[in-house]
């Protein structure tokens, strides 16, 4: 009898957990076919809601951070393109296996970058996306935003670069205070590849993950 109650309460807890999770995801799934600035605002809001509700992510719990990146960020990102552009002309020299391994290894770097950024999120954190400027029909756009944090601190300029794909808008590059992610990694990738080859780069990225 006792074990049965225990089982039931566990089931209930699981249902609650799953249900709540399911609800929070379903509530604000970003629409990739909306205007790019609206899409970015939806993605950012969804991530912020999840972060504010989960203290373990903010504390840098790697498993939870990676789960959140997988669930809420990567579906909206063309990370293969990010990696391909960061590898530049070396991408075509790599075998499909190496390309896949490189995407996976670089994804680890992204996870570490996010886990650092997430620790800074608090209840006052807000992302304000600015209206889109330039050509309305463009298929490659830059969306500008501003991250405001706790009172009396400097806001951070954060820009997103998006591409229109058959599945709607996908983010593929980020700009933090005038520095583009791909542009900055390009040089570091080229350095590693010219010295140790693609496999050397994959190894170096994976090694950083273990530190």
């Amino acid at each position, binding site marked *: 009898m006792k074990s049965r109650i225990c089982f039931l309460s566990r089931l209930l807890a699981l249902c609650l957990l799953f249900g709540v999770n399911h609800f929070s995801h379903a509530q604000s799934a970003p629409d990739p076919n909306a205007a790019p600035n609206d899409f970015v605002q939806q993605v950012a809001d969804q991530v912020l809601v999840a972060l504010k509700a989960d203290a373990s992510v903010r504390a840098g719990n790697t498993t939870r951070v990676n789960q959140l990146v997988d669930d809420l960020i990567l579906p909206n990102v063309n990370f293969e393109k990010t990696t391909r552009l960061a590898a530049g002309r070396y991408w075509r020299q790599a075998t499909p296996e190496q390309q896949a391994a490189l995407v996976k290894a670089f994804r680890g770097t992204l996870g570490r970058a996010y886990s*650092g950024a997430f620790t800074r999120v608090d209840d006052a954190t807000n992302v304000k996306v600015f209206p889109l400027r330039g050509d309305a029909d463009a298929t490659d756009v830059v969306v500008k935003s501003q991250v405001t944090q706790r009172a009396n601190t400097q806001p951070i300029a954060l820009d997103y670069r998006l591409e229109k794909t058959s599945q709607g808008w996908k983010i593929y590059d980020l700009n933090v205070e005038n520095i583009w992610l791909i542009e900055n990694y390009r040089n570091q990738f080229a350095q590693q590849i010219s010295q140790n080859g693609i496999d050397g780069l994959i190894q170096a990225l994976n090694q950083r993950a273990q530190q």
Partner: protein
Amino acid sequence: MRIRFSIRFLSLAACTLCMALLSGCATRTLGTPNPNDPLEASNRAVFELNDAVDRAVFKPVAQAYAFAVPQPVRSCIHNIFLNLGDVWSWFNSTLQGRQVDALNTFGRVLLNSTMGLGGCLDLASQTGAKRIPNDFGVTLGVWGLDSGPYLVLPIIGSSTLRDGAGRGVDIYVNQFGYGSLITNIDLRNSLYGLEAVERREALLELTDTIDRTALDRYSFIRDAYLKRRSAQIAGSAAQAEKPPSYEDDAPAPAAEKAPNMAPNK
């Protein structure tokens, strides 16, 4: 007591210097040389040295400061120093002939110094006006002076030949402009110390992120620095600048073909 402390500090500094020099010998130039960085080998050595000093002294002190002083107080102190710096930014914007920037910065200083309680509250940022950081290195750049080679200066860090000269002027103004207003030497030196600690503290999160994500911290910081400086010199024109073009349609030159391209299986 103070003398003993400074001797201890000096011996610690000397020790880290030795260690850094030894490790500096082991560093070598990596991969493709950057045309903006012909002095990469010696820059890397100074970078390692700065890093060792930072690890031994500046970073721990900044962490202790962050631990001991509550966030609102740190924000206040941070903003007061930034507000003082804005006066110099305003002067440089004027020298550069960027009257709109100068006017914005002037208004910001006026607002923050009065309603913002001497700069403690950054009211201007809260109303959405972005700070326009400026210094004499940017002024020289706007006047048409080429940046010259990238330089890593001891303690100061990333710079170029031009920015190093500009930094000299910045420091001179800071020392003899603001500094001479404070006649009490102890107080003045304490404020210089506080400024140094506070500056490092404000960078803790950034340097942690770089430690966590960069493949090669040296080139990460160098590229970011050069990019940021050229954006500052371009000024508001950089806002309208197109994002970088990544498409590389030229075939890879055979001579530069990377080794180990074949899978290792």
